[in-house]
């Protein structure tokens, strides 16, 4: 049996890659996908620790996270389509209207 620390370490690595993706990339779609990657890493940690404790609560939390991710993606992509309609290109660096 693989110890839960390995799963947690893998989850940490995936989360870090997601953070780097959010910092480095400029296409909002790719940034969105990197955020999904981070959510996924957190889910993996939840399931791993839930399995290690022998309780199903971690899996229930992951179920909720999946639902929230689906809602987030639907609204986020709708926002991106709206931005694209107004500006004809989407680049996060162009969207600096609210920057101080």
């Amino acid at each position: 049996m693989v110890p839960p620390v390995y799963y947690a370490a893998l989850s940490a690595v995936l989360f870090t890659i997601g953070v780097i993706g959010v910092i480095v990339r400029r296409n909002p779609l790719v940034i969105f996908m990197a955020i999904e990657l981070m959510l996924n890493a957190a889910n993996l940690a939840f399931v791993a620790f839930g399995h290690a404790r022998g309780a199903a609560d971690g899996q229930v939390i992951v179920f909720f996270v999946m639902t929230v991710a689906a809602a987030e993606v639907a609204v986020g992509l709708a926002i991106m389509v709206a931005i694209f309609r107004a500006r004809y290109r989407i680049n996060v660096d162009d969207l600096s209207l609210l920057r101080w």
Partner: protein
Amino acid sequence: MEALLFAVVALGAIASAIGLVVRPNPLHGALFLVGNLFCVAVLYLMLRAEFLALAQVIVYAGAIMVLFIFAIMLLIPGKTEIGPDPLRGQRRLALPLGGALGLIVVLVIARIGVAPAPGGTDGGIGTIGRLLFTDYLVPFEITSILLLAALVGALTLAKRRAP
């Protein structure tokens, strides 16, 4: 045997995650993310979370990624990143800062001890269903409201307004 499978699947997950970050074309990134989601689904299976593995493939790799690919196809001029990067310094700092974050997380995780739950049963789909409709009933209902709000919000945002 199980350790070998874990190593292979973990390597696949990490490689596809790196592919998502590195590839310039978001369509390739989406396919890499699908690969990553499949690898994590296999890990869920190894952790005896069959329901979540199925939900991962159906909801994430199926529905959500189709939405992503649809949006990428729809927003074709946004496909590649063109022009000079105005935040070049941030890009250079990303790797060391991200590495530091990963190191911190690993150090925290290494200190965790996991105690088995008293009288806990491992989560089959029946256990999850019972938990959802007893202990987690209120979050479950709130989730339905959230989904309704997201539905209405996406419709409102995507509706073409008369000029």
